[in-house]
């Protein structure tokens, strides 16, 4: 018995480095496995060795599977999000793109031309030219582009009330000027 103990201890001492190996130490942590190994050390028959090998291999496969699945989950979720974001960037929804500053400015200019171009009445054209730029811009946005007051206020970075006021003032001014012309 004492001799057996010595034999086992001697074996482990000789292979201290290998026993520290995580896969080996986790295998030996199970009492059943340890017993099998001790048995094989004492009686190194083919059968005993084979039994250890078989249990060790199933242990090894299990550990590898766990490791594999663990990293699979991690990297798969990373890739999934990357893929999703790439698709999202590639196929932008048009409604996602709000009116950006530069865009609306370009459109305003085009519409401005549009409004003055569409006026055929000379008096009205002259009267319109006398309005301030801002008033003209607001009239264009309201009558040519048909935008709601709220949207105009946002694009000019002011309040809807202010837009309404400027709109009314512009109309009054036009009214006065055209009255004078007629008189």
């Amino acid at each position, binding site marked *: 018995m004492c001799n057996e103990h010595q034999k086992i201890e001697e*074996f482990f001492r*000789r*292979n201290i480095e*290998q026993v520290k*190996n995580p896969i*080996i130490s986790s*295998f030996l942590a199970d009492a059943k496995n340890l017993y099998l*190994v001790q048995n094989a050390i004492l009686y190194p028959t083919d059968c005993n*060795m084979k039994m*250890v*090998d078989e249990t*060790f*291999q199933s242990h*090894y*496969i299990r550990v*590898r*599977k*766990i490791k*594999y*699945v*663990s990293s*699979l*989950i*991690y990297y*798969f*979720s*990373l890739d*999934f*999000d990357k893929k*999703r974001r790439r698709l999202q960037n590639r196929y932008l929804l048009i409604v996602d793109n709000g009116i950006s500053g530069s865009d609306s400015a370009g459109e305003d200019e085009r519409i401005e031309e549009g409004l003055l171009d569409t006026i055929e009445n000379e008096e009205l054209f002259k009267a319109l030219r006398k309005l301030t730029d801002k008033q003209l811009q607001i009239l264009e946005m309201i009558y040519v582009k048909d935008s709601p007051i709220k949207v105009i206020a946002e694009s000019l970075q002011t309040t809807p009330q202010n837009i309404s006021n400027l709109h009314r003032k512009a109309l009054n001014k036009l009214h006065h000027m055209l009255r004078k012309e007629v008189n």
Partner: protein
Amino acid sequence: MENNYNEEALMIIENFTPKIKQCLHQTSYQEREDLEQEIKLKIIEKLAKQEFNDTPSFWDFFI
């Protein structure tokens, strides 16, 4: 054998559920359910396909 695979995959998925849930934070809120399903599908696929056969012998580690 087939049944064995399925049971094993089921057990692994069950054991890994907390880890899966944790990894769902990688993506946006709307996509999480999709991702969870995709991960589980992938695990089942991979476990069925992947070979884990090249295991070393226990005695290879010792002199």
